[in-house]
């Protein structure tokens, strides 16, 4: 019997099939990167009556009402001022009674002793506040802390905070300038 040559498979349509699959995956791919402001919630309190006493001078109260208006430490304010006020509040002002207390603390990661402000920014919002406004305020406060971290990093290492690679340095700066934002327990004031 004569040996029949195996017929060659026509591979011309292979490209078409591959194209089809390619287009399917192209369409279904979502390449968006999720970004956002990361925060840590406080653990739930067991005893509601137990109030932690914080001195008045140590707290910067930021209130947002249902009309998205700001009250910064008892005075009506604008979002654009908030960053500067927050930085000013969290900075160390020796001998000034109207600013928060501070105490020196050793930060091992940086190998130096630093005055740590005891200030807390207290954020309180109404149930009727819009989420847009809330994020704007959170963003301003985050940007205030980021600027302070940048300044400290610049001063110690000559680099911006975001440019730091050494984990120890990053940890040290985070320890020296903790994000002290407290969100008040929600209260039902009534009326949305």
């Amino acid at each position, binding site marked *: 019997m004569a040996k029949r040559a195996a017929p060659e498979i026509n591979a011309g349509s292979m490209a078409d099939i591959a194209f089809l699959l390619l287009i399917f995956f192209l369409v279904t791919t979502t390449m968006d990167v999720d970004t*956002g402001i990361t925060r840590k919630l406080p653990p739930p309190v067991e005893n509601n009556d137990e109030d932690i006493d914080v001195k008045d001078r140590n707290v910067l109260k930021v209130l947002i009402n249902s009309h998205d208006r700001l009250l910064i430490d008892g005075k009506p304010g604008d979002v654009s001022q908030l960053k500067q006020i927050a930085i000013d509040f969290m900075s160390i002002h020796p001998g000034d009674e109207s600013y928060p207390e501070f105490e020196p603390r050793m930060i091992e990661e940086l190998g130096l002793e630093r005055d740590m402000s005891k200030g807390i920014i207290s954020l309180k919002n109404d149930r009727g506040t819009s989420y847009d406004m809330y994020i704007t305020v959170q*963003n301003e406060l985050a940007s205030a802390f980021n600027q302070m971290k940048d300044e400290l990093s610049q001063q110690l290492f000559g680099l911006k905070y975001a440019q730091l690679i050494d984990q120890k340095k990053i940890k040290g700066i985070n320890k020296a300038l903790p994000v002290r934002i407290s969100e008040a327990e929600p209260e039902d004031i009534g009326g949305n």
Partner: protein
Amino acid sequence: MSRFKTKKGKGSPAINTSSLPDIIFMLLFFFMVTTVMREVSLKVKLKLPQATEVQKLEKKSLVSYIYIGPPVKSNLYGTNSRIQLNDTFANVDDIQEFVAKEREDRDEADKKFITTSLKVDGITKMGIVTDVKQELRKAGALKINYSTRKGRDKK
């Protein structure tokens, strides 16, 4: 002379396309590997607020999402913001159960790294967001991320 020229110009050689499938396959594999299939279909409108101080969310497998916004079918469900968990609308009470379920799906070692991403529409009132946050606190899901778009540097 001129006859000779035209003859030569006409017969352009066919381009060898035998490596075309290989190239296409290469692209195909790239997209196959990078593709993340959409897990849920959104039932709420989401126009995320913008912020400048954003951080990237790493490790998508350790993120669980909660969507809050006005329903897409406003004639059916109204215009008030609703919570969406997975593929259905949910109430605030369902969140603890949802968190417990999300935790069960993850490895034991990863459980404490779960981040809850809040995807909330900008016009939503804070009341519902606060309720959700309180429930998350009770459920012990303390790491949260307010999902925002990057942008707007108003100065």
